[in-house]
């Protein structure tokens, strides 16, 4: 794409983008931890944000040694004989929410600018909708409304496709994904919408090597 379709778009600074607040688990690799300990570790991460932090290592050493107890007392083994539901309570579950969807697609890079869709405000948190009972055997819905940088952006379809591929790969099969343009954000709004949500066309597009190449470039920046 030698010629930019939109030469100078508005850009948001990464720090302005919504993120999931102090999700310490990510950093601490989800060591199942007492709430108290997690709180402490969160405090700590605010002061010294690295896993190498000596203090953190000390805390973990302490926890480890404290956990060193004869088998019957060991928490982790306690639920060996419990049912899996028991485990469920142990690992309280996090629902799939709009923030999670946002995080999935925010870092997709724009096909023509070296920027992410979020930075270009093509996707934003409030234009994502999740309808999910949380039940594993029931259909759930995700609606993503995207806003191209300019109303004649011929790449809108490509961007939409990128988002759809990302979500289809990332979400459980029970999710129905709808991707549409925000009202009035595009000259040929309806055509684009129709195409983006035509199951058959999307499937075919994903078998087109060139297209797939571009898409995987867009997705290569996904964090």
């Amino acid at each position, binding site marked *: 794409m030698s010629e930019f379709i939109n030469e100078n778009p508005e850009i948001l600074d990464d720090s302005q983008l919504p993120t999931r607040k102090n999700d310490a688990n990510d950093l601490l690799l989800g060591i199942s931890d007492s709430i108290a300990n997690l709180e*402490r570790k969160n405090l700590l991460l605010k*002061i010294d944000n690295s896993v190498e932090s000596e203090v953190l290592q000390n805390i973990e*050493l302490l926890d480890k040694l404290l956990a*060193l107890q004869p*088998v019957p007392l060991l928490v982790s083994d306690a639920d060996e004989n419990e049912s899996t539901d028991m*485990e*469920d309570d142990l690992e309280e579950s*996090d629902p799939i929410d709009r923030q*999670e969807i946002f995080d999935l697609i925010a870092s997709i890079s724009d096909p023509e600018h070296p920027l992410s869709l979020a930075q270009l405000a093509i996707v934003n948190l409030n234009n994502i909708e999740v309808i999910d009972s949380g039940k594993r055997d029931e259909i759930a819905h995700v609606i993503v409304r995207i806003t191209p940088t300019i109303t004649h952006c011929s790449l809108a379809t490509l961007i939409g496709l990128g988002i759809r591929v990302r979500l289809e790969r990332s979400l459980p099969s029970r999710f129905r994904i709808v991707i549409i343009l925000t009202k009035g954000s595009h000259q040929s709004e309806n055509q684009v919408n129709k195409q983006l949500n035509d199951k058959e066309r999307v499937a075919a597009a994903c078998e087109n090597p060139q297209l797939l*190449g571009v898409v995987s470039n867009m997705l290569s920046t996904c964090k």
Partner: protein
Amino acid sequence: MILKSLVDSYLANIDINKEKTDELGSSIANAINSGDFKILDVIINLKNEFISEDEKKRQQSLHCLSNILNNLSSATLKKNELNVIFNFYQSKIDELNNMTEILSGFNSLTTMDSVSMLEISTLLNIISNEYEPSKFLTPTRYQTFLILSNIIEKYKIEMKEDPKFLELFVSTFLHIANGEKDPRNLLLSFKINKTITTNFKNIEQFAEDLFDVLFCYFPITFRPPKDDPYKITAEDLKSALQSTIASTPLFAADAFSNLTDKLKASSTVVKSDTLSALNECINNFGAKYCLTEYVPLWNAIKFELMRNSEGGDVGLATIIPGNVNINSDVSNYQLAINIVISLARVLSEFDINAFNKFFNYILGELKPNFKYNKDLKQSSTVLSALGSVNAQSFNKVITNSLPLFLQNTSETNQLKLIIMNLSFFFDSYIAVYGSAEKDMLNNTVIESSLTPYKDEILMILGKALTGSSEVEVTLRTLSIVQFTKMIKMKEFLSEEEVSLIVQYLSETILEDKNKNIYYACLEGLKVISDIYEPIVYEISLKRMLSLLPNEINATINLSEGKTIEKELILKIILDYTTSRHCLVKESIYGICEKLYEIAPLENSNNYCFILITALYTLLENNISLIKDEEGKEIKNTIEDRLLSTLINNSSILNDNHNLNLLSIALFFINASSDRSGHQSALEKINDLFIEKYQIFNKHSRLVIPYTKLISGLDKDCKFNNCDKYFESCIILLQKHSDEIVQFNKLGYLELLMVMSNKWLDEKYVSDSLDNLDWSNLSSINLEILTWITKALVIKNSKYSAGPLEKFVNLLENDKVGDFVAKLFEVFVVDIGSYCSKKGISRSNNVKVLYKQKFFNYVFPEIVSKYKLVTDLNIKSNYLTALSMILKHVPNLLLELVIQELVPMLLEALKMQNADVKISSLETLNSVCEKNSVLTTKYFHTLVPLLLKLLKKSNTNNVRVRLLTMQLLQLIALSVPINYSQSMKNNVLTELLDTLDDPKRIIRKKGIDTRQIYFEIGQTPSS
């Protein structure tokens, strides 16, 4: 007789064996030097050849003679002898084919002491009248250059005194130099030319010719042939030519006009040659000429300077002194700037009015740019360059330049430009007055023409920083950077002004949420505290500390309703105090003070926690910095109060983390304090804890601080009745094992380890181990044994083998085996306050390589036993024990046993025990990271095993699932593509479940892993 034969064999060897001829030549010469023969004898011996009809023979004879002459010492020949030979050569001069030999003969003669001025002049005449360079090959021509350079070196005085002679020489030189092409000859030609122009006056009439014979080669390019015997480089020629052109003001007029002319060239190479030549000229010709030439010069380089866009970073260009000779890879822009600087220097050193003229001229040209906002960067760079040579120039420049753009505006882009331009002039200041160094408080402020603008500048930068909107990150960063630069300017700011800046920066770092700004401020504060640490302490650190509230949940208000978390304040303190003595010390004190305040309050645990964390980190980061004296001071100032705070406040005493961390902090304080006080310290501590608090009679949380405190003390301290306490400690543990809480128990166990490692004789320790009841499998007893054994293990004691063997055997015990397995981690786990760290080595007996020794002993034991047993639980015990160890041993060791290990690890993945799986997965991960060959080898067994671990179950807990996917990712990246391809779809399908996992962190990992597998074998295009 002998001579005859020598000469004959010489002739025989010519063109056949050079070594031989040279050798003969010199030996004959030596014989002559030592008076065995006369040179005339040689001539006689060669007579027939000289007059022979045979051209070749004649040449050979000349060859012989010249070679001999060449080897003669300059004193040997007598006047008449020399005269004879001279005439002989002269008589031969028409034998064009022998010219090389003849000239080299002459050349040798010119170096002889007995040669006469008459002969020299004659020779010069011969060369200029009877020798036609163009007729001869390079080697021949080379001889003439040799001759002339010898002559000029030898006869400078004569030439000075006798203009006729000089004239003769110069014209001869011009004669041979014309049209020369050979690099070796050119080097000589340039050299002679330079010697002429730099040694003699009254050669004006030749100036032009000398210049032409020189400049016709400019710009010189030369690609040395392979195996060039003379090893001449293009650089040699370049610099020789350049320095010769620049050698004399005589050339000034021609040089400047011709060079500026060359600047029109399009080739950047030509340009850069020309520019650096010009620069050298300016520096050598002196002000007089520059004064007449600067206008055309300026016009010639203007283009280079204005067109160029890299303006921004040339701030530092101005610092490079113009007279250092420029290496070729400097950009033309830089070269042009250097010319400006050189001109400025030369002129201002000559006469400030000259400089002013020059400056005003350029200023006149650049002024409009400021009016119309065009090429501002470039213009400012030029002006600041002009101001960078000395105080005079600087003042002139500033007074005239700053008014051009320095103005009070709130228009953002305007501000940006102003600040950017300012930075160039700051650089000139530093170039002129130097940069500030440490300890320059109560400094005298230099009165420069920049001084009057100080307030306005500070005002503008301040405005840019505080006045502009949050979004203007660039502008605010710019102003912070410039603030920092001003600090670096030697004796520019007064103390008050520095304080003001510090205030700006610390307010900004507190209030601003943007991370770039944060780091800019941080950098600024660091720089400042390098120079004005006390000010930073007074203005910034005190403020930060004072912000920390005295209630638990108080919100901290900054200006304009902004607020900040206390955690962030502490983070800032930690970030910028590091390795700044005073700041570190004061932060430590400040935080302690705060802790004294907070600890007594209701449920202040978390607040205490972050304070303690900060304190801990400060000590930990700067342990090497805090030297004995300082350590002592710190210890004396805070230890007692800290200790009593710890003991008297449940917010610390009854909070595991707080107690543990603060105790370790106390450990640091002791470890870094002057050792002379340790003995008394130990006694004091013992009185307090053993006598007063009776920690060995009734179990108490105070054992933790006690253990950490004594961990820090010198191991050479004398610990009375250590053995007695050691035993009572064991008894205490055994008696109260049921009611004593895990945390305290740990404290006592660690204490056992410390005592027996540090103070007790290892024989004694191993005996008491033997006396303990190994058949008692109560957990407490096992733990006691473990920790005492650890003490031996970490000091590589020979007594450790026995107990270790017992432990290995315990692994197959079906009751406690699995617990013992976990205990194996204790042996190798590093305890922060008790390991071989630099600086605290004298506090303990931890050997650096103990893990190696331990591992080499235990690993084979376990493996062999593992292979024998069949019972899964027992197997799993061995595996657990192994993985517990592997977590802590250096990878180097792992490498050695990997082949044996992997099959066991794979087996472990099948066992229904989360911990075993985890440990095995962790090890496999680290294996896979390093050893892709091995990974590939086990690929087909490993992957299916892993896919089974993805299904959520109580032995496939979160950690297992995470590690499994971690490993799947690693595999995808490390095995050959045809492998990963084969499994691609399978893995993708199996991973589907993880997408609906209740745990977000698992879903995330699942997605990332799938992404990696999707990309396998895809060729991203664009």
